């Protein structure tokens, strides 16, 4: 165990945990999309969980920072918030914001974080990405919407590491990157249990299980 200061509060922490977890355990909210507790090597791809650590020249992603004895951490400086707001606005500009018709409405991490950071869901200063027609792709067990995906990689992580199926993968690259699976654009559907871990891991509404699709009213009421 080590002692460190977060936002002026002295806390005790397990060195094995990430700084992000330590903050969350102590009731400090850090915006984050891609991190999961079991990750030994977090991708730090969402660029949201920044904190400032005294002695380090720049804000660091807290999911990849281990707590150390005597560390002084600030989570709510203007620099941190500016980074987080920019990152979120960029994500939102490539996100099909249609909360009213989205099955993840009210339990979407993007909504929560936008509210927390005081960012509008449709950032005006960034031109939204052209999303002309629906691009949903169907897997026997779930439906994937690339226009809602934030490419956090959580579904891929749980599919590979937690369940060991390894059905999901990133495909293509750059602006065209999507979450996909072998045989996604053919009739050759991949083997997959209906474990539903990927759908549960999605922080937004990019993945939905086929059951949710059939009974949207029920899901909204739950």
């Amino acid at each position, binding site marked *: 165990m080590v002692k460190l200061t977060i936002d002026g509060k002295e806390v005790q922490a397990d060195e094995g945990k990430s700084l992000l977890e330590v903050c969350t355990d102590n009731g400090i909210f850090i915006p984050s999309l891609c991190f999961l507790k079991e990750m030994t090597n977090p991708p730090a791809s969402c660029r949201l969980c920044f904190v400032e650590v005294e002695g380090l020249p720049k804000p660091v992603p807290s999911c990849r920072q281990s707590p150390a004895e005597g560390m002084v951490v600030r989570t709510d400086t203007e620099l941190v918030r500016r980074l987080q707001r920019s990152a979120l606005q960029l994500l939102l500009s490539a996100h099909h914001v249609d909360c009213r018709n989205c099955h993840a409405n009210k339990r979407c991490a993007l909504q929560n974080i936008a509210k927390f950071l005081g960012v509008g869901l449709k950032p005006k200063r960034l031109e939204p990405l052209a999303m002309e027609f629906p691009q949903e792709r169907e897997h026997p067990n779930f439906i994937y919407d690339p226009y809602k995906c934030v490419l956090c990689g959580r579904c891929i992580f749980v599919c*590979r590491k937690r369940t060991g*199926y*390894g*059905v*999901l*993968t*990133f*495909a*293509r*690259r750059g602006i065209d990157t999507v979450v*996909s*699976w*072998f*045989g*996604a*654009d*053919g*009739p*050759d559907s*991949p083997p997959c249990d209906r474990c539903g871990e990927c759908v549960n891991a999605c922080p937004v509404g990019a993945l939905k299980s086929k059951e949710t699709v059939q009974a949207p009213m029920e899901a909204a009421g739950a």
Partner: protein
Amino acid sequence: MDAARPNENDDNVTPLKVLAATLAPFDVKRENLIPILQTIQEKEGYLSPEAMKMVAKHLGVTASEVYGVASFYNQFRFHPPGKHQIKVCLGTACHVVGGEIILENFERKLGIKHGETTPDREFSVDRVACVGCCALAPVAIVDETTHGHMAPSKVEGILLGFQIEKERKEREKEQRESGSQQ
């Protein structure tokens, strides 16, 4: 319209035995994935689902992983090349004068996306970076012929040309056959 898709009864699909022989010299190492895929594409012209599954089995990775890696690189294609290969240049000069529109025209006329092949295996459309004749932009290369200063009407003309040619050949064939019967 769906893109052409190989199936097991297809003559163009190399027997799996041949594929296995191709894989054999490669060690079971993850870093061999890309060289293996390159070798297969060189021999087959594209990566079939069956080939990717075999590679996955050989290297002990999931088929998804093979697909993920292969789809990252422009050099790999997942559809067999068509009889007539159309390459639309999207290099800087062609991009500036609307190469994208030419590509879209081909795609719409043939009912396929770039990287795909029509179900009758007649045409495949690909996007390429610069082909080296920027003065002629926008450029499309159909089989071996370079078409400069492309326009949507020319797209139609090229495809119509192939259709007429095909019909002419069919007519000749019919005539020959009916001639030999007499």
